[in-house]
């Protein structure tokens, strides 16, 4: 592996300053499960690796009970999210996604922030955060700015982050009480594999009439970046949701997707699976809401 100097700043400001001093030859590193592979393979050739592991605030996971806002530090590992009872109970879509990223060894080290910044089209970590209307807080030399997670991705492997910017955390706004959410990584096997297609659905229902007040249908590997199926969401919003409507939403989502043929599978198969899985994930959401109320 190429030789580099390892730096481990303790604050975000210090990290940005380090990066400024070494400009083109410096790279930030989260858990390292992607960056180390890239350095080994020669795809990334840093003279300075700036580890973000010692920056305490980036590793914090907490929910503010007063505001209902969930804050996930960028350096929170997938395993921390997977093991959190709060995540399992209140944000099942996050649990569904992170519990099948890589392997346990990767999840014990790999971080949610690293998964987002890596910006692969499959982006298991991104789909639930988009469905939950997550907002990414970025910090750069000019200060902080917020970007919706859905707007974070420009193209495969490229995000809106400027060279020295650091993703600090993702905040999730409070969820309506009658909300269900689910994600499926669909492929030949879950572990150590990229999905053929990733489908996340979130439904919020009006407590009295049971009509859908919010619908999110998010797809991974359905285009160059993670996407929302806006027309399918529109179909569900304001209506009472049943199986027939979910099937229709699945068809619309499949039409909205920009799937293509790849080594992992054919476009027609991906579309078919969107149809089936939007319905199944929608049913899972409804079952969660029924179980809780």
């Amino acid at each position, binding site marked *: 592996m190429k030789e580099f100097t390892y730096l481990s700043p303790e604050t975000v400001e210090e990290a940005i300053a380090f990066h400024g001093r070494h400009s083109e030859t410096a790279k930030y590193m989260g858990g390292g499960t992607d960056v180390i592979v890239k350095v080994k393979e020669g795809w990334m050739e840093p003279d300075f690796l700036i580890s973000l592991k010692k920056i305490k605030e980036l590793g914090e996971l907490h929910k503010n009970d007063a505001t209902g806002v969930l804050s996930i530090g960028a350096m929170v590992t997938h395993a921390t999210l997977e093991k959190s009872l709060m995540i399992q109970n209140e944000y099942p879509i996050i649990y569904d996604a992170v519990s099948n990223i890589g392997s346990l060894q990767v999840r014990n*080290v790999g971080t949610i922030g690293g998964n987002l910044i890596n910006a692969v089209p499959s982006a298991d970590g991104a789909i639930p955060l988009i469905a939950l209307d997550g907002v990414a807080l970025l910090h750069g030399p000019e200060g902080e700015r917020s970007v919706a997670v859905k707007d974070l991705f420009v193209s495969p492997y490229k995000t809106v982050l400027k060279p020295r910017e650091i993703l600090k955390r993702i905040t999730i706004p409070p969820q309506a009480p009658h909300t269900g959410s689910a994600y499926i990584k669909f492929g030949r096997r879950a*572990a150590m594999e990229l999905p053929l297609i990733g489908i996340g659905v979130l439904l919020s229902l009006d407590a009295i009439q049971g009509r859908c007040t919010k619908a999110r249908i998010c797809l991974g590997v359905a285009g160059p970046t993670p996407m929302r199926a806006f027309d399918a969401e529109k179909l569900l919003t304001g209506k009472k949701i049943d199986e027939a409507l979910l099937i229709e939403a699945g068809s619309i989502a499949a039409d909205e997707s920009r799937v293509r043929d790849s080594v992992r599978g054919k476009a027609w198969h991906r579309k078919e699976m969107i149809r089936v899985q939007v319905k199944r994930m929608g049913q899972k959401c409804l079952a969660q809401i029924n179980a809780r109320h």
Partner: protein
Amino acid sequence: MTTHISFLLNGDTISVDVKDHWTLLHLLREEMGLIGTKEGCGNGECGACTVIIDKLAVNSCLFLAVEADGKIIETIEGLASTDGTLHPIQQSFVDNGGIQCGFCTPGMIMSSKALLDGNPDADHEAIKHALAGNICRCTGYVQIFESVQAAKKGTAENKGGNNE
């Protein structure tokens, strides 16, 4: 660049200078001669290099040696007693046909140990989930899962093993 680090390895304090670009796997195998931990793919896909860092199973091929500073690390070399008595998980792999060529075995056993240390009652699903990142090209996994199942009793009786 060289950095001085200290960590606990299988119960012993290690104080050593490491190059910043060394992986923990390189430090263990090439610098310290601890070749029980294997290098398979080198990309975090096969799990042959699995060690336990602060109670978590980690791919040592993707973990920088400098980041081992201050950590508690367990490798396959730390499992058997000094008199050669195998750890219950090791013995169970021997008894239940969990080993064929043996290359994946150290990683399999370290992943199993991390699992059972945290969850001594792990069921079949939990075992499969914990070992999903350890690839074996010989056994077809059935005997490996059986070995971990059978080790559960032994581990409970010998809670803590030899180096905790």
